[in-house]
């Protein structure tokens, strides 16, 4: 297991960036980054981050995972220059994290949407647009685009104090994208969102990646991280515990999965027999279950197509239908 504080272990880790990798590809780089919180008198309170070394490369979705107090937020704050490192360095676009100019290419969605409650959506976005020195015409164009993107057309002239948590989150996202950033930092992007919102957010993150943007997100929602991240770093007690490609980290090496459609019971028995003949162990041959998310989204979509009460007869299991649709989608 690669542990950041041990340089040899890092070098051996299969997913670490090779030394020869071109530097221009690296968007965020932390070198031996540590942060110790102190009290007013300078006394050491807690070591929130210990010798973190990570690199986030251009065009990837990088996830920071970890339980509460593991140092995720501290890392993000250090990257943004909201905190100063106790030792080590953070480079963003090859500039020091405290450099103001780097912010021109960064979008940041904070953990809670810390926005001005007395502004409307339009005013909020216009304000943040001005902070990027965007011209009036440019701001107007971006605001219209983003309001549509996050689906707040109907509420754009209402003050944020009247918004639900999910709506505030959307405004927060819109403000993070106002400058069409190259690097987007998302702190718990799906908190407060309903399943549809969560789905939209994940789709959006993927589409942003497809546009060539780099995304760093930190989350407790493991499923979100699994769904969107290319690589993850897992932190615990301020230390890097695991770093690698999601697909490889999650791959169970000695288990094989086969998905097939339209098999009879006889065929299933025969397949089990073949496996046994080859020395394998059949753990289960069963119909797969869909996720709760898929179930929910299907019900909502169906309800949008056919409004009214939904009839659920005892004989007709919904799971089958959901599974079919979800397979069809994939």
């Amino acid at each position, binding site marked *: 297991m690669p542990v950041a504080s041990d340089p040899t272990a890092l070098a051996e880790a299969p997913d670490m960036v090779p030394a020869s990798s071109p530097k221009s590809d690296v968007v965020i780089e932390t070198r031996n980054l540590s942060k110790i919180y102190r009290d007013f008198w300078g006394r050491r309170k807690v070591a929130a981050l210990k010798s973190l070394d990570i690199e986030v490369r251009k065009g990837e979705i990088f996830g920071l995972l970890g339980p509460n107090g593991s140092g995720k937020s501290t890392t993000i704050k250090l990257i943004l220059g909201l905190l100063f490192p106790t030792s080590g360095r953070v480079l963003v676009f090859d500039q020091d994290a405290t450099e103001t100019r780097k912010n021109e290419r960064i979008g940041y969605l904070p953990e809670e949407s*810390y926005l001005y409650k007395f502004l409307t959506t339009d005013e909020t976005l216009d304000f943040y647009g001005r902070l*990027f020195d965007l011209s009036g015409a440019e701001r107007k164009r971006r605001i219209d685009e983003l309001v549509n993107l996050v689906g707040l057309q109907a509420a754009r002239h209402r003050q944020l104090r009247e918004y639900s948590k999910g709506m505030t989150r959307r405004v927060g996202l819109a403000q993070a994208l106002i400058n069409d950033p190259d690097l987007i930092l998302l702190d718990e992007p799906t908190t407060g969102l309903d399943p549809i919102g969560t789905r939209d957010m994940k789709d959006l993150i993927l589409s942003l990646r497809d546009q060539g943007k780099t995304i760093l997100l930190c989350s407790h929602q493991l499923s979100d991280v699994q769904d969107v991240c290319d690589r993850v770093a897992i932190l615990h007690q301020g230390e890097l515990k695991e770093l690698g490609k999601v697909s490889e980290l999650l791959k169970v090496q000695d288990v094989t999965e086969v998905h097939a459609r339209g098999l009879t019971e006889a065929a299933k028995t025969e397949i089990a027999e073949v496996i046994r003949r080859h020395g394998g162990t059949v753990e289960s041959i069963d119909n797969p279950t869909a996720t709760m998310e898929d179930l929910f989204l299907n019900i909502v979509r169906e309800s949008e197509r056919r409004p009214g009460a939904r009839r659920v007869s005892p004989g007709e299991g919904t799971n089958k239908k959901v599974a079919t649709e979800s397979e069809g989608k994939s």
Partner: protein
Amino acid sequence: MTLQPEDFWSFSEWLMRPQSFLESALLQGIVLVVLAILLGLLVGYLVSAVRYGPSEGFYAVARAVRDLVRSDLPGTSARRTYALARLAYKEAIRRRVLVVVGLFVVGLLFAGWYLDPRSSEPARLYISFVLTATNYLILLLALFISTFSLPADIKSRTIYTIVTKPVRATEIVLGRMIGFVAVGTLMLVPMAIASYFFVTRGLRHDHEVVDIKDLGDGRFEGKLSYDQFHEHTFAMDPPANPGEPALGSTDSVRGHRHVVRQIDDKYVIGEPIGALRARIPSYGTLAFTDRSGNIDDKGIDVGNEKGGGGYGASGISRLIGVASEARRLEYGFMEGGTLGSAIYTFDNVTPSRYPQEVGIPIEMSLRAFRTVKGDIVSGLNGTITMRNPDDPKIESNPITFVVQEYDVAEETLPRSIEGNDGNAVRTLDLFEDLVSDDGRLEVIIRCVDRQQYLGTTVSAVYLRPAESSFAWNLTKSYISIWLQMVMVIAFGVMFSTFLSGPVALVATFACVLLGFMAEQVYGIRYHLDRGEDMGGGPIESLVRMVRQDAMTTELDVDAVAGKIIKTVDAVMVYSLDAVATSLPNLPKMLGTAEYAASGYDIFNSLLARHAVATFGYVFLAFLIGYFFLKTREIAA
């Protein structure tokens, strides 16, 4: 209204003080900025050094300075600053601070009940009231809006979304300041307009003719009704041309008079005239002669009566001990019935400046000091003599007047007057004979009554070449209030970059308070310097209060304790003195209200000085605020 020497300084004189540069405002400003920067760097370094070690600490401080000069100042964008200013403005407006304006207007509606209508100077009362009320209200408001906003943003973390944008610390500090100034201005303007109408409408009143006597040859004399706690008598002359209405004027009571017109058989009384004025005075230089006629620069000191009030400052020179006391101007007295006199020399006395046909208006607010009761019904008698400064033999006959204490006496220096041209007694022309070729005129004031004394100071006697409009003068008073507001906002924002809201509020308030109390601090230091026992510093005073000791006795504690108390007091007083000298001179700015209330035009140079001083302090506060915000860990 007594003016201090520095009140007469022109803008450039104040800035440079050509004769004594140590007193100059420029030097004081430079020293202040340099000291603040050095102190800031030192404190910044110490804090960083404790946190990150000596070399890292130095690097952190050096980086802040480098960033300011290299990227933050040149990179400051007007659009971002405007956006931040607009945000601060919207925040305040949407928190309904404008309600205060409503409260002010409601306050004005009821204020009429409490302002004493019997006052002998209603105009002064009304003007002082509105100016003082607005001043304190606006300063209080500035204090609240400016100190709470930034700490609230940091606490609620909304600041995260700002500092993660390409926003410079300069823009955050400047944006706040500008935004709050805009809010304050938006509140001050309606207050000023409401005040103007409150004063003008409040003083407006009417009388009726209750008695009229025909004096023959078309002249009338009469009396007006008792309204608003006063009455007038009036005299009317026959119309200049037949067919025109007869015109008359009342006597001047409580600072105003009325015009009386006769239209057909009716008498129409005009609105009060002269209550709201903005006299533009032309001051001269003053010298005294003693009872034998020898030149004396001070006049006679009659004790406490000479006190002039006002606020003195002498820049750095007082602080480093070159000048021992805040320089003050006091009344000098001349003895009646002797050769004692006050000689004023006025410059630039030309017919184009004083085109009035009757003569030059001269106004006096003299003080009387009686050693015997004398005739208490009428005032003391004085004389005015005009003399040519180039040829003292050319002198007019004395014009007598009765001293009106606590009031401005208006006299006229006539265009032609009997006098002595050095050879013969003849009628002298004011401009031809008495004014020197370079436009100077000497005016000599004497006291006639024996054993009585007449006191005067530079600002007590002046010629009045012109009159400005009251509305414009009131506007200038409000500009002065606005400048004070800007100053308080700058300090509030500065403190809020590194203190929490309530603490920033108290810190700003302490600065304002110390600014107001500066004169007293100077006084204590002055007595300490001279070794005079005037109750001592803070600790000694406390001891005396607890022990109920008089101020002038020796401090009754044992020698060691006494030494410690005096040493600690000295340290405290000298530090307070230094702080008070470096703080804005708010009482001086507040003093402009006195100009308007007394009916004097506020000197433009005075306003310019206040403006420059204000923006100097704003710059200082901006620098300090920047430094603290830049070196602060926002998310800590």
